[in-house]
């Protein structure tokens, strides 16, 4: 498996990042080097029969009573907003029309 420039562009779009042509070439090289190293896990015998480890400790679902607790106020939640209007976060328009 080798990463192409097209892959870099597709992944960048998914990750919501933008790169110059030069950066794309550099990233392609670096990703291929790291992924090439990572590919050695395919040498592990019998890996297909191993169950994936999803939880690192034995905790099960942690529930609490469904009652409201103290949380951030509107003022606090909006405190770091780059732009706001009244009680809302303000963002640019969604569609360019």
């Amino acid at each position, binding site marked *: 498996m080798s990463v192409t420039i097209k892959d870099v562009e597709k992944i960048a779009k998914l990750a919501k990042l933008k790169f110059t042509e030069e950066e794309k070439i550099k990233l392609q090289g670096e990703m291929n080097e790291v992924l090439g190293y990572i590919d050695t*896990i395919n040498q592990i015998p019998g890996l297909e029969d191993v169950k994936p*480890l999803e939880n690192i400790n034995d905790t099960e679902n942690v529930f609490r009573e469904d009652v409201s607790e103290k949380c951030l106020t509107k003022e606090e939640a909006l*405190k770091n907003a780059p732009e706001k209007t009244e009680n809302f976060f303000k963002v640019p328009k969604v569609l360019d029309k």
Partner: protein
Amino acid sequence: MYNDYAALRAGLDTGRVSCRDIVGFYLNNINKGKHINAFLLVFSEEALKRADEVDQKLKAGTAGKLAGMVIAVKDVLSLKGYTLTCSSRILKNLEALYTATAIQRLLDEDAIIIGKTNCDEFAMGSSNENSAYGNVLNPLDNSRVPGGSSGGSAAAVAADMCMVSLGTDTGGSIRQPAAFCGISGLKPTYGRISRFGLTAFASSFDSIGPFAKNIHDAALVLEVMAGKDKNDSTSVDHRVESYSIGLNDFNLKGAKIGVISDLDESALQVEIKDTLNRTIEMLRSKGAQIVAVELPNLKYSIQAYYILTTAEASSNLARFDGARYGLRAKDSAVLEDMYVNSRTEGFGAEVKRRIMLGTYVLSHGYYDAYYRKAQKVRRLIKEDFQRVFKETDFILAPTTPTTAFKLGEKTNDPLAMYLNDIYTTSSNLSGNPAISIPAGEDSSGLPIGLQIIGKDFDETGILKLGNCIISNS
């Protein structure tokens, strides 16, 4: 000035010294060591004010168990009312709205927080060269890195800018800088300390832990921070031991210490290998039983680690989009552009590289080939440890393949940088506690760290053995 907190506390309790004196001493060292760039924020006035409050409590006999202990915290941890930058441009002016549980528990015992320390951006890095606010220098040799990602926290303790500091360890980010700076650094068992208020990098790996010049102080702050927290559902409800009590009474006779016989030593500096061997001989001569153990899947830990942590990071860092907080790029015509431009301007190169890798391994067609497989490897590594810990109480290993390297030496080679974590990532994959302790010096006088890995929740054991090795070397 004081070798450990117990000595300081004796001075405070008898009135020979005040918290104000102590804070003044550390502030002076921070000022003298500005070129190290260990701190992003110093609480000069607030710390002195708090010192006076704690002095009053000491006089009244109501002071907590960490009264007057001066602590610095890595700037990925929230402290209400202060900036939380994660060493990233994207959070340059973010004001934290709440305090991390780990910090709150220290404050409740009257510790004094002196500032927030520099680190690699979002804790991604092994040299502290990925901070948007400049490199941290190794206080022992300014041409070298302090290690990373918790480089500022390690440097601050090594340069006597605080007594203890907090770091975070996702793949070695406490242990490796501790080794490079000649101090002790503890990564507790996963879930031992609440992650509430810690900016997530890879949630199933991240652990908060202390740096200190001696084991007693590390044990004391662990004791205060550990325990279940309702705000972190992955924190574990396991009994918190009095880690700081009885550290000196450890009997090496009968202790089983594992040495990894199939460890990859291809890049291991000879002097580190010699230090390891000398320590093994010392332990054997004092009655410890040295057990050869095999961890056949250890050689796949970096691979599994970089698949899983970049995947988790790509998902965790999706929240930084310029909408609700953090940097928003100017002049974006539509919402989508705002997301893309803010992230592109706000994140540094290494963070982008990891988001790209993580997005790739989670993307359609590659999920099973990478992510799923890495989860399987994680199980194999965890099972390796579980099996080995039936034969032995501890594993003794190097912390790093080399001593502190030069600034700029590995910045153009991400893979070489990643391989620096070759001995540390495994205990984040398995969740086991591990500590790096200073164990010697190489021929250039740079510190060598050794690592003790313990059974799940046996922080007491690794602290005791670490203390024993330090006092015998």
